[in-house]
């Protein structure tokens, strides 16, 4: 029996497809998420919009919160470690967390190097804005990708930008000649072998979810329409007026993303969604998407 193989790690993400992964900060929220039909929960100390407000250094969650969430639900539990923080990642792995997010939402621990994720038994998800980032993270051993978007803003524009860009670059790669791939690898700072694999298979070798700014059922459906394999919803759910109803609506809109009458029904009287932020109003230094290399 072999544990921690690529197939087992990537396969875990395949099982999440078409689903919604929700940020939660305690057992009660985790149960609401599970009840609403979330495919997994991300256990955090604070949701991204609160991290943004609190300022200072954002770190791995208190292990007690993660443990509390793991004990509360039967669906998989994910948790975030700081970029390059080997020990936070090892601690979360030792606790039995099902999936780690090496996340730009937390303050990076290393401004040069990401984790060598292939060294771990637990699978990782990482953010990406373009094919270069996507391929570097896959090269380091990420088993799942997500758009970075701009977390904690409730503004979908950056997630849309990142999803469109990655998919356009994948399409371009697929149509290139094989003798052009090395130069493409040089341009994007991407590992050649990963680009060759994308070219041969006609798609990314791991699933790519949408994240960073999804605030309504229509936002979730839009990301599915643009080719996301599923969605992460961070601040959107538990910062809305009626989280349980909101969570159910997002799950259904993700499953039936092209059923517009249904989405209209789901979107009725949901109450106020989270208050959004205009990206231009966020100083460059405060944009989480700029973190990661």
């Amino acid at each position, binding site marked *: 029996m072999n*544990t921690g193989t690529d197939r087992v790690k990537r396969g875990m993400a395949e099982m999440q497809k078409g689903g919604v992964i929700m940020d939660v900060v305690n057992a009660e929220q985790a149960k609401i998420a599970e009840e609403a039909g*979330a495919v997994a929960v991300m256990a955090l100390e604070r949701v991204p919009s609160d991290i943004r407000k609190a300022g200072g250094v954002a770190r791995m969650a208190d292990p007690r919160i993660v443990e509390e969430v793991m004990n509360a639900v039967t669906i998989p539990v994910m948790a975030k470690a700081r970029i390059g923080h080997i020990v936070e990642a090892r601690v979360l792995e030792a606790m039995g967390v099902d999936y780690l997010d090496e996340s730009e939402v937390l303050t990076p621990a290393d401004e040069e190097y990401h984790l060598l994720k292939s060294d771990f038994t637990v699978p990782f998800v990482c953010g990406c804005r373009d094919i270069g980032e996507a391929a570097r993270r896959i090269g380091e051993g990420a088993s799942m990708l997500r758009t970075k978007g701009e977390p904690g803003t409730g503004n979908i524009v950056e997630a849309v930008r990142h999803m469109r860009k990655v998919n356009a670059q994948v399409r371009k790669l697929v149509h290139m000649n094989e003798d052009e791939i090395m130069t493409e690898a040089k341009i994007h700072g991407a590992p050649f072998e990963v680009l060759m694999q994308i070219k041969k298979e006609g798609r990314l070798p791991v699933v790519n979810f949408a994240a960073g700014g999804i605030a309504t059922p229509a936002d979730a459906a839009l990301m599915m329409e643009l080719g996301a394999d599923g969605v992460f919803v961070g601040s959107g759910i538990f910062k809305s007026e009626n989280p349980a109803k909101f969570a159910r609506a997002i799950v259904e809109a993700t499953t039936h993303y092209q059923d517009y009458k249904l989405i209209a029904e789901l979107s009725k009287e949901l109450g106020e969604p989270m208050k959004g932020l205009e990206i231009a109003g966020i100083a460059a230094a405060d944009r989480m998407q700029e973190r990661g290399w």
Partner: protein
Amino acid sequence: MTKIGVLGLQGAVREHVRSIEESGAEAVVVKWPEQLDELDGLILPGGESTTMRRLMDRYGFMEPLRAFGESGRPMFGTCAGLILLAGEVAGYDEPHLGLMDIKVERNSFGRQKESFEANLVIKGVADDYNAVFIRAPHIVSAGERTEILAECDGRIVAARNGQYLGCSFHPELTDDHRITAYFVKMAEQAKASLAHS
């Protein structure tokens, strides 16, 4: 051509579609109960069983799925799908569809870091099958009419009970389509015998 549906509410739907097509049948992604009528067989894919169950309830799938199975048309559950088919789920008062005469236990091999690949002998299908187990359930016990097809580490991981086929692992994650081909054959035989009755 034999038509096999894949319940398309959540999970590894695309992979099963590919595997069905590789096995020479037509694949249909099922998002609404009305689509069941045209099918000769149905696969309940891997994914999250709690999520699929919520959506099955929301869209009125439970009774139509039970009627589908009881009509004699074959159903195949993989991982989460096996949990949905089972007659009993350890630790829960009620099963989901409750169609297959087996008792299953969820996440019984541990959390994700304990997920694994192993080589199996599957009776009537393969004696060298590379199986992928992800937070997998296992079959704790099987009824008299249920045939045990594979075991791993002393636990039952594949079985057949009449028109119901189930396994703990994910055939859809590999390029080995032998178990899907076995199911397609079950559907072809059922189609032929239902046409005569």
